[in-house]
């Protein structure tokens, strides 16, 4: 009987892990419908959308097109994957074959309406610094206008994310959203999606981009190609709250209460039986 009980205990501990295990991985095949990417390769994004640049000036998206574009959608207060992705990008950009600002441009758009141009500016300074000295430019700095950090009004954000099929969700802490680079052709046509799939734990840049991948993506965008079919498991950016956790907390609460109850009963037992066991109790009250 004891053996069977032991078996059940250990089995339940071990299986608890496998039941809740892999649903909670950051990578899963597709979005849940609410969050994810619905590829719209070959379609055009509305170029007349208005955003604000880092100085707070209104800027039309078409003013930034005209050359191949790497579009990233993040929110600026993110403390999870967004900064790591932008950091990885900042390390890859100086190594690309194409000339920044001339042959291509990076546009980072915040899908959080609360984000302000000031935040965008400080982020831009941060990532410009992360890029470091850029040897190919005459003044050794990465061109300012080659990487724009935009914020926008609600409607523009809505239209842009709809147009590229980017689905995100507001959470208790920030947002849940996919981590992806979108290549746009000079005319605003969506040329392809590049999914971030790998997170290298413990590295100083856990998300990295190979210059080969980006070169190929930009070249395709420059020719106006629509590249599809590279469907991979993609990374999501979200606050980590495993679904099994609340069950675990309930389990803890029950065990804790049982322990507490055991202690209380022990105390009551000691009190009640002390008359029987303790000698000389009658002297206690004596002065």
């Amino acid at each position: 009987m004891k053996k069977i009980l032991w078996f059940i205990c250990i089995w339940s501990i071990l299986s608890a892990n496998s039941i809740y295990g892999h649903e909670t991985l950051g990578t899963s095949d597709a979005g849940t419908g609410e969050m994810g990417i619905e590829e719209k390769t070959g379609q055009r994004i509305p170029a007349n959308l208005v955003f604000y640049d880092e100085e707070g000036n209104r800027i039309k998206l078409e003013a930034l097109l005209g050359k191949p574009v790497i579009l990233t959608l993040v929110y600026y207060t993110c403390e999870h994957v967004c900064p790591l992705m932008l950091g990885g990008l900042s390390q890859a950009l100086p190594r690309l074959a194409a000339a920044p600002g001339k042959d291509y441009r990076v546009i980072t758009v915040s899908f959080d309406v609360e984000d302000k141009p000031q935040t965008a500016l400080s982020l831009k300074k941060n990532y410009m610094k992360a890029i470091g000295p850029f040897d190919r430019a005459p003044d050794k700095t990465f061109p300012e206008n080659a990487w724009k950090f935009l914020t926008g009004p609600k409607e523009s954000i809505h239209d842009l994310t709809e147009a590229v099929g980017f689905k995100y969700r507001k959470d208790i802490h920030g947002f849940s959203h996919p981590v992806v680079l979108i290549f746009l052709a000079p005319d605003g046509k969506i040329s392809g999606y590049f999914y971030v799939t790998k997170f290298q734990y413990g590295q100083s840049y856990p998300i990295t981009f190979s210059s080969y991948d980006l070169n190929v993506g930009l070249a395709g965008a420059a020719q106006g190609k629509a590249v599809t079919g590279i469907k991979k498991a993609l990374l999501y950016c979200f606050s980590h709250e495993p679904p099994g956790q609340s069950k675990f907390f309930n389990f803890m609460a029950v065990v804790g209460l049982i322990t507490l109850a055991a202690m209380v009963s022990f105390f009551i037992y000691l009190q009640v039986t002390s008359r029987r066991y303790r000698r000389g109790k009658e002297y206690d009250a004596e002065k």
Partner: protein
Amino acid sequence: MTLRNETAVTAGFYERTGKYRWLIAEWMMSTDHKRIGVMYLMALLSFFSVGVVLGFMIRLSLLSPGWLMGQQTYNEFFTLHGVIQIFLFIIPGIPVAFGNIFLPILIGAQDVAFPRINRLSWWLYVTGAILILLSVFIKGRPPDTGWTFYAPYSIQTPANISIAVMGVFVLGFSSILTGLNFVTTIHRMRAPGMGWFRMPAFPWTLYATGWVQMLATPVLAITLLFIFLGRFFGVGFFDPTKGGDPILYEHLFWMYSHPAVYIMVLPAMGIISEIIPVFSRRALFGYAAVCMSALGIAVVGYAVWGHHMFTSGMSDTARVIFSFVSFLVAVPSGVKIFNWVSTLYKGSIEVDAPLLFALSFIFLFSIGGLTGLIIGSLAPNLHLHGTYFIVGHFHYVMFGGAGFSIIAGLHYWFPKITGRMYSERFAKIGWLNLFVGFNILYFSMFILGFQGMPRRYFDYPPEYHTNHVISTMGSWLLAIGLIIIFANLIRSIFKGEKAPANPWGGKTLEWTIPSPPANENFREIPVITRGPYPYEEEAR
């Protein structure tokens, strides 16, 4: 009327019983609380010296990083320093050593309620200690996680974590059994007439500690078991890639380890509450408040663990509540401090070594407690978390608090335990070195931490060098102090004068019996008719 004890034995408890051929077997198999306490005391002080040497080497290495040890060795050193000082010395510390020797005597009993369980918990302690030492010496790397065994690193590191964790797990059971034993002893074994409020303050604090040990330690056991399952079976309670959560580990760990702070400090306060009335010849001021505040600290201490993890990711509501409750702990602690000081007021103070250590406790523990308020408030915590400020703070509480009170108790009860007197002069010289060295060593850490020096770092930028040098020099003075103190005590065991039954003029029960005590403590079980500190009543 007194109750007669049928088997009163007058021989001192050190004398051979003749049951076993070998001395070591006789002691290891003994169920006498005093023998078990003395063995615990010797083991604790041995581990304390190992821990001190490790800490000393850490400080020496920080003088000029790299000259003494490499980075990996440094990580292993601070881990072992922490594990040994916390789990092998200061958590078991006062209850198992002084509690075992003096709890039954102070309440007028012949032994603890379960002498054999007492022996079992001593064996478990030895087993746990051996396991932890094995983790250093067997093949592979010594633990390098820090004493907290934070997941997920403790699950991933190739170091010998499993065996060290197993050791701590076994030590936990030793602690639970001791707690159970003491609580039952205090309920059941008090001498006739010793009502709750005629019990000295030290048993009161042991009582509060016993409940904390029973209630909190199982949480640690479960947490460590999860690490164990993680390392051997890949169960991912704390591994995010398997649906677990590393922050859960921090919660579970501190849910035990914060109450553990009170396992260390409450009995320390008990010792101080014994020493101060004796050396100022006054009843402990606010005796009932001092005893009740021990229970208060034990209860509130359960609800503050979150203040160790303000920067780990927690909701603002939780942080505000944890911060507020942490402040509440200061209230019963303050009650104790004020009552000790009031006890001294208008007393006939004799500044002997035990009182010097007790006064240092009040001073150092106050600094430790007040800096605790600084880091217990949210805004400064964000700046100071994970810096040397924390290191300074907890050394003031652990070493300045619990450590000093152990040394105070050692001097106070030395004549009773060994039957010999120590040299007062050398005790005072040792105290001066220790006290000054301590403050140089740890106060500079507050400054370092305020400047931003992170804890556990092997190396540092040049602007921190001056304070590191000052701190290391303090450690030399402190080491000299400890050497003088322990050399004096060890010498006195063999060459000291014979101690009278009551060298300090104490009024509690241990001073009514010979030094060292006889085998079953009391020739006749005493009947108690008054409170524990009747100085004024007798003077009248």
